[in-house]
């Protein structure tokens, strides 16, 4: 380790002011602080500091994402083997999925981090770690068949328009990962909805290649199309119950299908205190509340007639409420505001699902909408504190 420190110390002068590669200062700095906790001393204020930094925060989120990602990889193989009637082993399915998902992750990171490095370089700032998480989430909320160039454009849009023009990590209004998905959703709708994009290879499959009774629709789009809860079916046309939706071996975006894997991530986030449990709890409450209200007197054969809890296990609700609604930068920042924000995210998601004729999934739009209103929620919460203070002022 001493050798590595000496090696980097020798390189450092060339990247500092006046050095040959001073223009690459931010890039060098990013790698330097990746390898070592920097030797920065506290200069003013508290002399000792907690050993928690943003890198660690982001690392914990990535660890929390890992179960959903690993399950997603296996599920890509699983769905592929079901659709084509192939006999694949457990590891075979995982390996198949791994090879299909890896390019998405690489494209997401290369494009996103490339832009992050470039903008840090232009501004002369340190490179922010925020994209480490966004870069992992973006592939997880995409269908596995999304073309890489669309992914690259979406990532560039999200990082530039969603984040960098506001000033980088910590300054953005909307969750960058969701913005990437929204970009694809509105610009290339056929690539992110429909029945053929959720399973690798189905879009290009020749007639007869797929198993009999094949249907590529996700549970949510089946429900949106008026199929009753007990008639939901898997890719191969087998009946699908709620338990299977909790486990997650069904069609959907790569990381969103398994409620169990997401719940493991949620436990990690809540236990480490990185994400707000208040947002998660109130989000679930909001969704159940609206689904319950919507269900009163609902016609048979509509999504509204589904039991309320189905909304938690179908589509991207679980993933969204755990990993994206809780993004500290774009969610409400006051503790009281978090309750309200979470509730509205859940409620709006189900409102969009139930009363939007065009598209059954509402989580993405709901979170983006509430991201927009989060500062307003905080404003009201903070105003209450201000009113208390103004009331006791002697001089007005």
């Amino acid at each position, binding site marked *: *380790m001493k050798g590595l420190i000496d090696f980097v110390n020798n390189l450092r002068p060339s990247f500092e002011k006046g050095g040959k590669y001073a223009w690459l200062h931010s890039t060098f700095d990013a790698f330097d602080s990746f390898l070592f906790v920097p030797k920065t*001393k*506290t200069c003013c204020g508290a002399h*000792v500091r907690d050993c928690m930094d943003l890198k660690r925060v982001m690392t914990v989120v990535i660890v929390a994402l890992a179960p959903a990602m690993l399950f997603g990889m296996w599920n890509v193989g699983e769905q592929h083997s079901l659709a084509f009637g192939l006999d694949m082993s457990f590891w075979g399915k995982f390996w198949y999925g791994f090879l299909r998902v890896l390019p998405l992750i690489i494209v997401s990171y290369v494009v996103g981090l490339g832009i992050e490095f470039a903008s840090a370089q232009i501004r002369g700032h340190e490179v922010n770690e925020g994209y480490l998480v966004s870069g992992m989430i973006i592939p997880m909320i995409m269908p596995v068949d999304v073309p890489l160039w669309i992914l690259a454009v979406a990532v560039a849009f999200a990082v530039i328009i969603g984040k960098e023009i506001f000033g980088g990590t910590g300054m953005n209004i909307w969750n960058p990962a969701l913005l990437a998905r929204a970009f694809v959703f509105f610009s290339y709708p056929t690539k992110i909805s429909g029945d053929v994009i959720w399973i690798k290879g189905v879009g290009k499959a020749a007639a007869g290649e797929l198993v009999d009774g094949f249907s590529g629709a996700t549970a949510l789009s089946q429900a949106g199309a008026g199929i009753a809860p007990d008639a939901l079916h898997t890719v191969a046309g087998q009946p699908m119950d709620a338990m299977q939706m909790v486990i997650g071996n069904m069609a959907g975006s790569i990381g969103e299908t398994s409620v169990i894997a997401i719940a493991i991530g949620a436990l990690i986030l809540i236990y480490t205190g990185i994400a707000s449990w208040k947002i998660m709890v109130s989000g679930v409450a909001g969704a159940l509340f609206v689904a319950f209200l919507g269900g009163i007197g609902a016609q048979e054969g509509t999504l509204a007639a589904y039991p309320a809890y189905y909304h938690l296990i179908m589509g991207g609700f679980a993933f969204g409420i755990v990993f994206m609604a809780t993004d500290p930068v774009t969610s409400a920042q006051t503790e009281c505001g978090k309750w309200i924000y979470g509730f509205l995210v859940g409620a709006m998601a189900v409102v969009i699902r139930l009363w939007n004729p065009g598209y059954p999934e509402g989580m993405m739009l709901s979170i983006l909408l509430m991201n927009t209103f989060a500062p307003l929620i905080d404003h009201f919460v903070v105003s209450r504190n201000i009113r208390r203070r103004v009331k006791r002022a002697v001089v007005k």
Partner: protein
Amino acid sequence: MLNQVRLHKGLNIPMAGAAALKMGQEPAPGVIVMKPTDFRCLVPKLMVKEGDKVQAGSVVFIDKFHQDVCFTSPCSGTVEAIVRGEKRKLLEIRIKQDAVTEYLQFAKGTPSKLSKEEIVKALLSSGLWPAIIQRPYGIIANPADTPKAIFVSAFDSAPLAPDYNFTLASDIQDIQTGVDAIRKLTGGEVYLGVASESSVLAKLNGVKAYVFNGPHPAGNVGVQINHISPIGKGEVVWTINPNFLAAIGRLFNKGVYDVARTIAVAGPQASNPCYVKVLPGVCVEALSSMFVNDGGQVCGQHVDTRYISGNVLTGKNVGFLGSLGFYDFQFTAILEGDYYEAFGWCKPFRPGKFSVQRSYFSWLTPGKKYNMDANLNGGKRAFVVTGLYEKVVPMDIYPVYLLKAILANDIDKMEQLGIYEVIEEDLALCEYVCPSKIDVQNIVSNGIATMIKEMA
């Protein structure tokens, strides 16, 4: 039964090197340093020149804008040097101490029989007035004001802080006299915040005592004010440390300016953490035998010792050639932080490091004390994580919103969000826990400076 206030928010930082309850060797007479920079917003006017003889209680400099506020020498001796900085800013007056202290005699008296004006005059001329701090802003009180109330925090909850039950046990008589004196200065009450009913100071007469139960910053007077009677716009309250109450008591009982205090010498780099009786302005050098002066090893790299006048949250890095501040009651010595730690942020375990959050595993060892050093432990970033500051600020305040108002220089918002209720020390823990390594105290300082300028 005293009034009880239970605080749930806050954090006791588990630092190693707490001072043992025993007295160390008093330093031999040396150089005592008076620093006008100890006092916020003070523009000093020097009243001595090099070579002048002074007694304990002789005026050394005064406040240029309130010329009746005097700053007097804590010891007798000769003015050895006057140190100035850029633009001839007065930094230090160094006084070579006599072997035996000669005290300037002030009038003795019984405060309960004196008028408010007589007490103010005695405090001003003796040099004890600067001990009284005004809130808002944490500046020296204006003698022309009558505060709503006076607050005394009878315990210090900061990391490795001195235990006043130990350091002030023999000064109860003087403190009672001090309380009698300051009671005359306010139209309202004198409030006393104690850690428990068994505290030696809980028995003082003429005060309204509250028990504050909870982790740091329960001992911060600002937090106590917020729970007893929050400061509104247009209100002024005063605060004073019990050590200064003892000095005020000695002024009235013995007629001397005697600010000698028992301080804690603590921290991982203190060779023998204990208490010692010193004067404010005592040099680190005079106590050098109590520190590990040649630094130490962290991650295989050599780092120096950092000497802090005060505690690790709010103290000043004074260096080996520095001295104890007027308002400080401890020296803390830690290791500097200029070392690299390979892959520190992604190691699952970092047994030597403490984190209040659970993403490191220090929560598994709750009793452990840590040898903390001055590494920033990360890089500076924008505000990202939310809800953390609120966990360590037991006040009815939104710290992040207040800080953002200060950064935006929005005076109305600062006022509305409670700038009058805080000084740096009240938000120091925010700075400690911040994963974005934001210099919270510096921001608060700037905010207070702006308010003083704009409201003057």
